[in-house]
């Protein structure tokens, strides 16, 4: 059987076309996104199979590094509200989150001793979409990528130690608690 022949990409390549032209159309982007989602899902489940619970730590570390790198260009601040806004810009529209609190609670931010906690509701999340595309459960290693990403970005912007805990995961939104320790660097 002959190899598949693609004729609609026959053209002239000039160096100056980059980065103005990407080639392909929206359907190609969709195909690429779905293939990447499947790759990510396969990698995540294979990592878990090989490393067990250690998979979470590996992915967390990868996410944390990404977070630090992404936030390097951001303005440093001690103001949590400003940091959250800046991080929203870095994470982009694919990780849309808002602060959340129960109706009976007065403030979004809770200060306790040298710790500050704020609950974040992640509405749009590429990780969640990837898990649904590949049929994997939430709260697995791939979720730790976003974990690490958030922690890395917070640490970079605020120059403080931070951690994120998953409170609840759902098909439309996930609730996480961001904790910042003022005294730790």
């Amino acid at each position: 059987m002959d190899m598949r022949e693609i004729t609609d990409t026959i053209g002239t390549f000039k160096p100056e076309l980059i980065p103005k032209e990407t080639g392909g159309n929206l359907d190609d982007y969709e195909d690429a996104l779905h293939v990447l989602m499947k790759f990510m899902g396969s990698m995540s489940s294979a990592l878990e199979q090989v490393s067990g619970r250690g998979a979470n730590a590996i992915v967390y570390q990868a996410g944390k590094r990404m977070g630090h790198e992404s936030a390097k260009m951001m303005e440093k601040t001690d103001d949590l509200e400003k940091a959250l806004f800046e991080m929203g810009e870095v994470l982009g529209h694919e990780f849309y989150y808002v602060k959340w609190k129960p109706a009976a609670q007065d403030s979004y931010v809770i200060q306790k001793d040298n710790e500050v906690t704020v609950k974040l509701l992640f509405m749009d999340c590429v990780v969640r979409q990837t898990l649904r595309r590949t049929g994997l459960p939430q709260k697995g290693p791939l979720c730790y990528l976003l974990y690490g990403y958030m922690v890395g970005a917070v640490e970079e912007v605020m120059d403080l130690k931070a951690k994120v805990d998953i409170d609840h995961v759902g098909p439309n939104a996930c609730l996480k608690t961001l904790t910042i320790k003022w005294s730790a660097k």
Partner: protein
Amino acid sequence: MVEVIIDEDACVGCGSCVEDCPNDVYEMDEAKNKTKVVKEEDCMACLSCHEICPAQAMEHRDIHVAKRLYIDRKVNYALERII
């Protein structure tokens, strides 16, 4: 504000949503053996209840519906032609 509507005709009273909701938005109405909404203001629209409800008896209004880019548009197109 989020509005949660329970279809009482559809609800089978299994209580799965009551157990699953992290913010105790639902309670069982023992007299009717149906779920009732008691803390609508605490609903964060995670939609875990939708996923777990065997009767698809609930509806959430005025929520941010997350993007569903994982859905294959070609599959949707094929489904539309069949249904």
